[in-house]
């Protein structure tokens, strides 16, 4: 039989692992080359993975929701014609996953329960379920010759389903008397992750995240007082990135005031014609992008990254724009933003933001940024302190644009004011450079060319 191994693909240079979101085939199913075999979720994008060959799926080596390293074998396909026929006649197994091959088993640090032949029940073995047992319960278990596997099956009436002294003694008593032994409802080791059950009684949080319905956490945080949601890959990775960034870069923040009145005038004057011509609304964003690109050209050290004791200065501007989507935060990148004129930037911003919200971004759309803009003003924030998007060295945050009373030439005037924050990595950008850069951005906005769109 000729066998084809399916491996976890590497969807981006920096990616090391991927999560199997959904298998589209069961063992025994026929599959055509390029037909979707599974869906995976990675650090950066979610993707459907086509089958590398036609044949019969013989093995799925990992269950759904499992995260595995790139280039790990995750499935096997038999491309033999005859095998296809025999597999089709064999009864399909209801469980999606078979035992992993020895190669994978060696790699995964799964704790094995000791062989049953040993007379001493193995208490050294960790409970696979992660259930806590008090010293007393373990003591009784040892004295009564109850194995860890057996203990794992005893239902608990204590807090969070804990097996209490009473529970274990009742079990021992029943066992001695030969009464039917109480069993735990769900086998903890084999419990599948997060399966939404039908008909929840209380109204629940509306979320694209899956509700967790089983497992020990459900006992620890029972409904309806609690709801448990499975963090998506995107959210988990966002968390990891944020922590890593704060650990990597000494963040310094500078907040400058920007008078957006002139930008507002230019925007209003041109918005109708612009929308008619381009098919989308003219926002403040392309003005800000344009000013940032020009300032980055003026201060190229803000557009760099650190590699060891070297500063890697980028001769291009790939501008990341943070976009909030219903699935979480994502940062698509305008490639070579310095080569685009104002309208080109506006189109790029609109295109990326639209596709981000529709989950239509491809991996190249979110890679290779050299500087990032985040606009939290839309959510009401006057000021923020954004976290740098590694390996970049600075990020600019835009607060809400509000009309404020300001003093101009000793007179009080009403102006559209926004607070811009520059968060920068003080390993390379100092206050003088950061402040000069941010001042340059603001100067360009405050002196925007009135004929920019003419």
């Amino acid at each position, binding site marked *: 039989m000729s066998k084809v191994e399916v491996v976890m693909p590497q969807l981006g240079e920096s990616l090391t692992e991927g999560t199997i979101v959904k298998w589209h085939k069961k063992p025994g199913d026929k599959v055509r080359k390029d037909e979707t075999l599974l869906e995976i979720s990675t650090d950066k994008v979610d993707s459907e993975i086509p089958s590398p060959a036609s044949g019969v799926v013989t093995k799925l080596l990992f269950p759904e929701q499992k995260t595995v390293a790139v280039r790990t074998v995750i499935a096997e396909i038999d491309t033999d014609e005859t095998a296809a026929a025999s597999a089709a006649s064999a009864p399909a197994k209801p469980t999606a996953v078979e035992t992993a091959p020895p190669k994978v088993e060696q790699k995964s640090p799964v704790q094995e329960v000791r062989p049953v032949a040993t007379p001493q029940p193995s208490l050294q073995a960790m409970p696979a379920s992660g259930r806590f047992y*008090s*010293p*007393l319960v373990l*003591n009784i278990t040892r004295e009564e010759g109850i194995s860890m596997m057996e203990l794992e099956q005893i239902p608990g009436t204590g*807090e969070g389903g804990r097996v209490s002294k009473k529970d274990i003694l009742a079990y021992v008593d029943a066992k001695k008397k030969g009464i039917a032994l109480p069993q735990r409802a769900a086998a903890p080791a084999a419990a599948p992750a997060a399966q939404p059950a039908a008909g929840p009684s209380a109204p629940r949080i509306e979320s694209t995240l899956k509700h967790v319905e089983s497992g020990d956490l459900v006992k620890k945080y029972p409904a309806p007082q609690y709801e448990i949601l499975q963090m998506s890959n995107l959210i988990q990775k966002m968390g990891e990135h944020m922590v890593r960034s704060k650990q990597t870069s000494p963040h310094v923040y500078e907040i400058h005031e920007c008078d957006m009145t002139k930008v507002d005038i230019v925007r209003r004057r041109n918005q109708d014609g612009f929308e008619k011509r381009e098919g989308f609304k003219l926002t403040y964003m392309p003005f800000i992008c344009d000013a940032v690109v020009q300032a980055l050209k003026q201060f190229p050290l803000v557009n760099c990254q650190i590699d060891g004791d070297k500063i890697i200065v980028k001769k291009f501007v790939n501008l990341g724009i943070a976009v909030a989507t219903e699935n979480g935060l994502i940062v698509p990148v305008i490639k070579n933003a310095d080569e685009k004129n104002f309208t080109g930037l506006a189109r790029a911003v609109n295109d990326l933001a639209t596709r981000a919200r529709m989950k239509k971004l491809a991996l190249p759309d979110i890679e290779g940024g050299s500087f990032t803009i985040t606009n939290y003003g839309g959510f009401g924030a006057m000021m923020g302190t954004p976290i740098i998007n590694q390996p970049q060295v600075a990020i600019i945050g835009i607060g809400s644009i509000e009309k404020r009373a300001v003093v101009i030439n000793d007179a009080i005037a009403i102006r559209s004011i926004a607070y811009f924050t520059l968060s920068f990595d003080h390993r390379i950008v100092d206050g003088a450079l950061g402040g000069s850069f941010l001042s340059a951005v603001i100067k360009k906005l405050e002196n925007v060319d009135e004929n920019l769109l003419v």
Partner: protein
Amino acid sequence: MPKILTYIEAISEGLREEMRRDPSVFLLGEDIGTYGGAFKVTKGFFDEFGENRVIDTVLAEAAIIGAATGAAIAGMRPVAEMQFADFVTNGFNQIVNMTAKYHYRNFVPIPLVVRLPSGGGIRGGPFHSSNPEAWFVHTPGLKVVAPSTAYDAKGLIKSAVRDNNPVVYLEHKYLYRHIKGEVPDNDYTVPIGKADIKREGNDISVITYHTGVHWALEAAATLSNDGIEVEVIDLRTLLPLDRETILNSVKKTGKVLIVHEASLTGGIGGEIAAIISENAFEHLDAPIRRLASLDTLIPYAPTLEDYFLPNTQKVSDALRNLARY
């Protein structure tokens, strides 16, 4: 024919009996003579035993304890009264540096009793409500007792007087007249170093003393209606602790609540918890819990003092939490 005495009457009776029994026993303290003491423990003693055995002192605790220690070295059996336990700090140096060490250093026993009227719940405020037992439990060379009932109060004061070691006798002011109990007529003592099981139960052990015993007994009666059987261990002696009784109870129940009126941090509860986890870890079915007064000064305001102190309800709540675990 046993009689009913209050806690304070039991202390007085114990002292009186010891003074009648042994002429080397004498008392000294502030206002204990014709006035009969701030709480009237020694009422009538001056008339019965005279000025040489019931000595009014200056208002100087260091002098009282120093003189008492000297008398003990000389072969007497003094019983020194601190007017309030709070003021023992003025004699603290004498107790920890002299009284406690003298036998070890100079081979002379110190049969001295220092009586400390302690405890809150009497609206005494921060200077008249202390529970200073932990300081003395941390002092090798001393014995520390803390009775909760009239029977134990009398039996322990008699044992303290007869002991050849310095004994710090903590008598709780709230219990003085709130607690009554049967006391036998015959000459009896309560051994120092022996705890007492005040109520038997299989589900949870409460380890406590002084006021905590009464909170625990009331809580245990309530919980028994719900099928939770609480064992109440009255330590009676805090130094040396009766490890055997503590550990046997823990081995029986597997769950422990330690209750004391002294504030939590650095209290005796921590020591008891450590003894249990070192010696009975594999018998524990729940974390060892402690309930004590808050880690703050004792407030004057009655509502705040009530909030500060443990009580029957707080003990009940803690026990129910443990039962649920």
